[in-house]
């Protein structure tokens, strides 16, 4: 049995932001303000993420989709929440002060239906000192072209060109998996000046109500997440990471440190926990602790050493 390695260094740098470890949350999978109501200040003392990604905000308030909004599937779930949020003004007034109390950098997710709407959001959020970076949710139609921005390289490029000079903050593009070639979208994002990409968003899905044989969700269709999509996410991450030079934040069904290491080996600089948060509010803490163990078992003393490469278990280790 080999001597256990010292505790590996989990620290990373993402778009110039130093993070204590590589585990974030996926946008819309953890509401730190609501969680603080349930768990109190223990949440701040033991915050599970190295940076917090907000739920997506839009220019105007949205109520969200009619219920039912969620449906459990084998090793996963389908959701159609519909981006309920307070709108830009409500976010700045009510949510930003509370999110600024979190002990980690804040990444704000924004979505507009035109370059002008996105510009208003980037202007409104980008110069706030509480905000470390912005994530662009491009899984929405451009009302002018009718095309989903994140499904067309030309749309993605045009959006980034329109936004790039409006803020000095890092811009992260959240990629949709519902395209034939996500790497082409990532290349367009990089060409337009994006600082990072994050992937995957949920996979379009429409569960049926077994009692009526009609679509179960109030909105008809939604997005699949959870362990069921993990190999799809890894496949897309691998092709995206090979195609771009900017960092990738990998997510899609991560539930353990071993899962996180797979995403890092596939090229992710950071990883995000999403649906697993629903199963345990500190699932990300366990992912982080297990990731350190996975690295140590491979005699790696830093997470950077694992990025984008095969990392076999230590030959002398007999544990499984």
């Amino acid at each position, binding site marked *: 049995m080999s001597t256990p390695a010292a505790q590996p260094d989990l620290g990373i740098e993402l778009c110039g932001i130093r993070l204590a470890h590589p585990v974030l949350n996926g946008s819309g999978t953890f509401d730190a303000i609501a969680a603080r109501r349930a768990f109190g200040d223990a949440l701040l003392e033991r915050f599970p993420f190295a940076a917090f990604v907000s739920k997506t905000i839009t220019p105007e308030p949205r109520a969200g989709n009619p219920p*039912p909004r969620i449906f459990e599937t084998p090793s996963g779930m389908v959701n159609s*929440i519909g981006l309920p949020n307070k709108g830009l003004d409500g976010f700045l007034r009510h949510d930003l002060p509370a999110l600024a109390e979190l002990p980690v950098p804040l990444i704000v997710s924004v979505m507009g239906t035109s370059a002008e709407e996105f510009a208003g959001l980037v202007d409104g959020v980008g110069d706030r000192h509480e905000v470390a970076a912005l994530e662009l949710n491009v899984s929405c139609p451009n009302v002018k072209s009718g095309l989903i921005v994140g499904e067309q390289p030309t749309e993605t490029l045009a959006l980034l060109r329109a936004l790039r000079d409006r803020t000095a903050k890092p811009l992260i593009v959240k990629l949709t998996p519902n395209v034939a070639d996500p790497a082409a979208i990532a290349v367009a994002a990089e060409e337009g000046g994006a600082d990072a990409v994050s992937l995957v968003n949920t996979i379009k899905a429409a569960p049926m109500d077994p009692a009526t044989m009609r679509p179960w969700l109030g909105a008809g269709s939604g997005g699949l997440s959870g362990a069921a999509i993990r190999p799809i996410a890894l496949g897309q991450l691998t092709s995206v990471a090979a195609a771009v030079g900017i960092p990738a934040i990998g997510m899609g069904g991560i539930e353990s440190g071993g899962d996180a290491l797979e995403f890092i080996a596939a090229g992710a600089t950071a990883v995000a926990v999403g649906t697993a948060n629903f*199963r345990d509010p500190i699932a990300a803490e366990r992912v982080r602790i297990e990731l350190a163990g996975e690295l140590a078992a491979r005699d790696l003393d830093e997470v950077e050493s694992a990025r984008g490469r095969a990392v076999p278990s230590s030959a002398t280790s007999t544990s499984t």
Partner: protein
Amino acid sequence: MSVATDGRVLAPLGRRACEVTAVRTTGTYRVFSALDRDGPRPAPGQFYMLTGEDWGSAGGRPYLPRAFAVAEERAADAGVELDFMLEPVGPGTVRLDGLAPGDEIELTGPLGRPFSMPAELNPDAAGAILVGGGIGIATLAIWRRALADAGIATRSLLGFRDEAHAGGLELFDCSEVRLASEDGHVGHRGYVTDLLAVLLEGEDSSRSAAVYACGPPAMLEAVREMCGDRDVACELAMEAPMACGFGACFGCAVPLAGGSYMRLCVDGPVVRGEQIETALVAGAGH
């Protein structure tokens, strides 16, 4: 133990393993007890998210935790012993139905907004009326004991589909109970809301009571309308499809009066009748 201004007991952060200490069957329901060594005693009306270390493995379902109200709670030598009542109808409840003493479950809680005292709902409230249907009487049983401890007069109206679904009655070890059953095996043949209508029409004190209800969505909506029409304060303990229990997933949307939605997990599960547009929430009761 930390308590927020709205009475909710804060949950320890993170899910934790609890030993199952007892299981029993009552009618078509199963009641199991879990020893929560590290948790606080919940406030009546609060709920827990239950799951198991192996959920999501073989067959992939159940995958998400399931929300359960507390049917009974007792201080233990260490922590608190919690009783949960269930009917095995889907992958999650079937798994929980198979628990045996010595098994482990994982839980997060207590979660959500608890019941309010009658005087908080109506300064003139002279007492409480509990209206329970089927498995919904579990959360009312714990609330009835809290009201009794506070010296508040309580009348309980309980309704059941049939004898098999009357198993929760054993949780109500009090005399002031009126019963209804759809099959007529006990009490009034019909709905429990028939009993409430009689009570609200017939007795002066009823209008100065506060009504608390838990049961199927159609029952809750009938109670809500009946109380709304008569200006009787009421609180409903509701359910909705829920993945997390602490405001993360936004799945448990309940339509608010005046538009938009609330998240039942953090703004409920106990809601005031006038807060919501309807108790007939699509997807509830599954």
